[in-house]
């Protein structure tokens, strides 16, 4: 399905994790993101998928709008920098192969406490005995124990129980999930971080570990404030994410939405000067703080909308930034793809995807001076079955042919 554009030798770099081998046995977005991040940093990631339809995310080709797509955005984003092995784990003939794959990888990513790999005849305890250096990373909605362990979840549920939802939305309306299924990627990033911590401990002690990652708890660490406010002051927070303290809010301009943001008192004074209303900085009603001014939000909003009338979001953003005001552009995806700063920092890698054409995905979101890396394209299903089983597991051509005829590999 996919292949790289003509290779540019200057771009073939190894990345900081070039010596790590990762086996991705997962089929959830959070776990897939974990393995993808390790791969984007240079680890050799082998993803095991069922022959036939492959990873379930390959089939998720419905856009948010309901439109059918030529490929799955989820699969393409969450599976860069991986090799694909198509192996039918339900077949008894696959068990020794899976055991060998597990034995030859340092980090094994699985998706949670539902026993996916126990059902394939692989006891984690047996595995730990056979390969004490292994690091097993289990990414699950609620973690490996506790009363919700086997509860079902989606990003909507993580937003609800994780504290993102109650304060998201407008006063008097229903609470909202955050966009972008972000609790999945947050859990996946934590899993990658925890995996690397376990790698450091193993380098010192020579012993692996089992990493238990809870997506619920990951979500909470990003939405800690309501619980902290209640813990300290027994106070709740209203639902008003159309504005935040400062005040900070969004203003409609001709070419899109502008984010008007204020954090410090100095920025408030600068904002008043920036919109030609230094009198507002002296107005005793506004001289409270970033909470107190929220009582006057309609009046402040009107003054700002008047000042920005007829101006574009883009020019106002740049001008405000020259005044050291932390304004933002409210980007839609197509705006984000075109931000000049992304082009200047070479943030996107272009992959040529069969049946789709060129697709851009971001590199890791930082530049490492000594160990730069670029993502490789998401793999075609089973593209690496033969090389992995032959080179890593030492299978012969005849053995591969037999397994293929039996439908165990593809």
């Amino acid at each position: 399905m996919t292949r790289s554009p003509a290779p540019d030798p200057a771009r073939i770099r190894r990345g900081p994790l070039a010596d790590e081998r990762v086996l991705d046995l997962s089929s959830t977005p959070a776990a897939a993101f974990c393995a993808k991040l390790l791969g984007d940093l240079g680890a050799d990631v082998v993803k095991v998928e069922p022959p036939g339809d492959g990873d379930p995310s390959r089939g998720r080709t419905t856009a948010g709008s309901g439109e059918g797509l030529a490929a799955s955005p989820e699969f393409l984003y969450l599976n860069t920098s991986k090799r694909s092995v198509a192996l039918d784990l339900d077949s008894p003939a696959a068990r020794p192969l899976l055991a060998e794959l597990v034995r030859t990888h340092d980090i094994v990513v699985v998706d949670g406490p539902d026993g996916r790999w126990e059902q394939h005849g692989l006891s984690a305890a047996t595995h730990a005995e056979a390969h004490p250096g292994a690091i097993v990373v289990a990414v699950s909605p609620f973690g490996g124990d506790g009363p919700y362990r086997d509860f079902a979840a989606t990003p909507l549920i993580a937003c609800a129980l994780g504290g993102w939802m109650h304060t998201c939305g407008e006063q008097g309306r229903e609470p909202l999930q955050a966009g972008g299924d972000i609790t999945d990627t947050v859990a996946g990033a934590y899993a990658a971080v925890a995996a690397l911590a376990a790698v450091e401990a193993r380098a010192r002690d020579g012993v692996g570990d089992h990493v238990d990652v809870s997506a619920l708890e990951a979500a909470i660490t990003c939405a800690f404030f309501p619980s902290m406010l209640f813990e300290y002051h027994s106070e709740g927070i209203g639902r008003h994410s159309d504005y935040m303290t400062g005040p900070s809010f969004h203003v409609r301009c001709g070419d899109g939405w502008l984010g008007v943001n204020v954090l410090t008192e100095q920025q408030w004074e600068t904002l008043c000067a920036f919109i030609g209303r230094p009198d507002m900085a002296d107005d005793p009603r506004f001289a409270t703080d970033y909470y107190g001014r929220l009582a006057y939000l309609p009046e402040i909003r009107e003054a700002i909308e008047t000042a920005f009338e007829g101006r574009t979001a883009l020019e106002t953003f740049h001008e405000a930034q020259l005044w050291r005001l932390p304004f933002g552009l409210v980007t839609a995806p197509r705006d984000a793809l075109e931000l000049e700063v992304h082009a200047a920092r070479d943030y996107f890698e272009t992959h040529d995807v069969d049946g789709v054409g060129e697709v851009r995905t971001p590199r890791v979101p930082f530049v490492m001076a000594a160990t730069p890396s670029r993502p490789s394209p998401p793999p075609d299903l089973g593209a690496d079955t033969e090389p992995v089983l032959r080179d890593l597991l030492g299978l012969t051509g005849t053995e591969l042919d037999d397994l293929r005829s039996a439908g165990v590999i593809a």
Partner: protein
Amino acid sequence: MTAQLDLETRATAAPTEALPPLAGLRIVDLTQFQSGPMVTLIAGDLGAEVIKVESIQRVDGWRGGGRGERRWEKSPNFNWVNRNKKGITLNLTDPRGADLLRRLVAVSDVVVENYTPRVMANFGLDYERLREVRPDLVMLSMPGFGGDSPWRDYTAFAWTTEQMSMLCHLTGYEDSGPLFTSTTGGDPLAALMGTLALFAALNHRRRTGEGQHIDLSQLETATAFAAQALVEAQLAQIEPTRRGNDSPVHAPHGAFPCRGEDRWLALACRSDAEWRGLCEELGLPADTDGTHPMATTADRLAAREAVTAHVARATAGRDADELMLALQTRGIAAGVVVDGARMLADPHLAARGFWVVQDREGVGEKHYPGQPFRLRRAPFVDPRRSPFLGEWNEAVLGGLLGVPDDQLQELAGDRVIGTDPLGV
């Protein structure tokens, strides 16, 4: 499930003398607010020695959230994210302060900072100069838009990066403008990717002896968490946008009112079987509401609003927690929309030992979020409460760097160090 149980048994039986993963690592932390401090929170919980540098001229901005006497010591945000750190003060605009910082870096492994790029250069403390005193230094810089960037001097905080990462565009009602997620936006997202970069750099340094500078962009880190939408925008005719609580493939999917004021249950019905189970639990007909057919997912997606109303009428009299348990027993994804009080009282989080309980003078015993992961073998450190301003000056400057007492007194007299903020 058996696999999990096996592993727990093994972990319990194994000797527990293991040290935390990052024991022995020393980090100089020049960051404030959340994005940087959350990097060193994770590293500190994992055993790194974190020396947090503030100044009495400019304390960490997150100390601003406290109330009452000495309120800078009573900020819930600050007190959460700075546990397991040794806090010192150094006025880096004074040459003696900058010199002490260089001496500190010389005996440390890592520097983390989240200023705009001009600030560290103005202090004379940019990577090129710090590596002169510590050649294998790993330095993580976390400005809003990257250091090597046409927007390097632009300013960003949590909501700037949330707006520019598509998250606000993707969050909202179908009929509303873009909304904030109501969290601290891009800050924790920068922290997670910053930690990932730091740990990857430590991996490389361990194998090669080579340190390096990491140029992180908080715009890029926030974008990475929602970048599936970037791919969708390239494949689709229709640009991805806000859709309330709707799912393109599941219905019902959203928040449903329950008994009490502003009580809601989120629920995602992922199959026709789950739909039938939901209707059975709620005592509703599953085939139709009397007007719209609802037996199949296609039916329900076509009549989303009617389905939502049909279900909402039945949930309104139910207790959200009881209904969550009843539906989860039937395998249906359901979760209470928790506020701060309900989150703190959650039985699952309590059973998992998620909260870190710490006593602090002037504040009392409080619960703070722990880490969302556990290593079964290598432990976290025993938690130590966040530092008072300048609390570790003597231990770090005197003890670690060997600055004599009379010099410390002189530095305090000249306000290079201290324990009380100026002009709060």
